[in-house]
């Protein structure tokens, strides 16, 4: 797509800012202890799960006439399947005419659970697989995490009622395993595979070895490019985490556009209202469901997400691609926001 036209489209989307993708961080408890966790979740999370009624009260501030089609609530965590009332949560959302979906590590996803979730209206699912057995188990800190995830992936891939994909967080350790993983996922009948890289936040901040070098990032781009050229039933793509310069529209379908705060909001575990859960909540939270109306906040705040002029800092201050990139993904700005944490465009062009 022509980049000028796309920028016009993007600017119009920002002006309209239709909310159609709402994360709910329904728990920060997690049965695994991943080395690259952006949320620093654990089994003994200090935060209690948010009661369903609290979330529903926030959801009900959205006027029915303003609920677009499609509209999805994405249950995330932590591990959402640790909530004993997960099906009640899903059903309550569906009864409001909205779709719902879930991001899971797959550990507790079995045939019985799938049946219950489908009955509660589950419409989409994403399961993480971060390498072949040894690598995945090392990264996830559990000896059964791989076998359980693969079992869950096979189950979900065969279910035609779920829009399903697998995500892999590409690190320096699993980069060489991607061809094998591609074979595995193809064999399981997975329709889509999304690859992304580690952002140095949360627990991942202490594991810089997992962050790809510019050469490795370019290798990853070439891998995805080759898979997409080959075609086949397993659609492979790079996630929308940043502007990629020469690989734009080569490794994904549409040009880079961070929808955080434009179409995406979140209700975080403590009630704060933000956009994607991996965005620095201390810097970018826009209110709280306990003191504000979610809908009012969406309508009247979120300015830093809809006008990125503040991001002309650090490496972005003089970059000629700023009009295409707008400072990259919002999750790339943390703390004092002196500059983006990573810049894939810089890394890729430094190699080529």
């Amino acid at each position, binding site marked *: 797509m022509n980049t000028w036209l796309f920028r016009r489209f993007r600017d119009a989307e920002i002006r309209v800012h239709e909310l159609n993708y709402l994360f709910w961080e329904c728990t920060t408890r997690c049965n695994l202890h991943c080395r690259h966790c952006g949320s620093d979740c654990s089994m003994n999370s200090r935060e209690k799960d948010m009661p369903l009624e609290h979330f529903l009260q926030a959801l009900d501030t959205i006027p029915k006439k303003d609920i677009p089609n499609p509209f999805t609530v994405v249950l995330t965590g932590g591990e959402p399947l640790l909530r004993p009332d997960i099906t009640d949560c899903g059903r309550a959302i569906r009864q409001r005419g909205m779709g719902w979906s879930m991001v899971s590590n797959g550990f507790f996803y079995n045939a019985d659970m799938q049946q219950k979730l489908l009955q509660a209206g589950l419409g989409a699912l994403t399961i993480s697989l971060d390498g072949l057995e040894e690598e995945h188990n090392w990264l996830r800190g559990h000896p059964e995490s791989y076998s359980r995830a693969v079992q869950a992936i096979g189950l979900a891939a065969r279910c035609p009622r779920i829009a399903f994909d697998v995500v892999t967080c590409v690190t320096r350790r699993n980069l060489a395993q991607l061809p094998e993983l591609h074979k595995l996922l193809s064999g399981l009948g997975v329709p889509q595979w999304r690859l992304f890289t580690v952002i140095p936040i949360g627990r991942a901040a202490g594991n810089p070895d997992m962050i790809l070098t510019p050469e490795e990032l370019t290798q990853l781009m070439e891998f995805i490019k080759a898979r997409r050229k080959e075609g086949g039933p397993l659609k492979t793509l790079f996630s929308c985490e940043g502007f990629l310069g020469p690989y734009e529209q080569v490794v994904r*379908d549409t040009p880079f556009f961070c929808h955080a705060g434009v179409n995406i909001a979140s209700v975080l575990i403590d009630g704060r209202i933000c956009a994607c859960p991996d965005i620095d909540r201390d810097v970018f939270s826009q209110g709280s469901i306990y003191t504000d109306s979610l809908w009012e906040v969406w309508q009247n705040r979120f300015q830093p997400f809809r006008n990125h002029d503040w991001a002309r800092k650090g490496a972005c201050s003089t970059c000629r691609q700023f009009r295409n990139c707008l400072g990259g993904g919002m999750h790339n700005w943390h703390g004092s926001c002196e500059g983006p944490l990573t810049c894939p465009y810089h890394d890729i062009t430094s190699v080529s």
Partner: protein
Amino acid sequence: MKRLRNILKGLSLTSALFVFQACYGTPMPKVEPMDEEVVTVVEEGEEIPEDVPETEEAAQP
């Protein structure tokens, strides 16, 4: 602006632009009518799974 956007959204060639996926999120869900979702065919003699609401007909003696 919203009207124009809705027209564009309805056109199959451009709708891919509107159906995005957050970095750490899921694809957009397949949404089926709720009544289809709760109907589960249970074979004779098979145990009814939990969470399946009984219909009024089934509840009658």
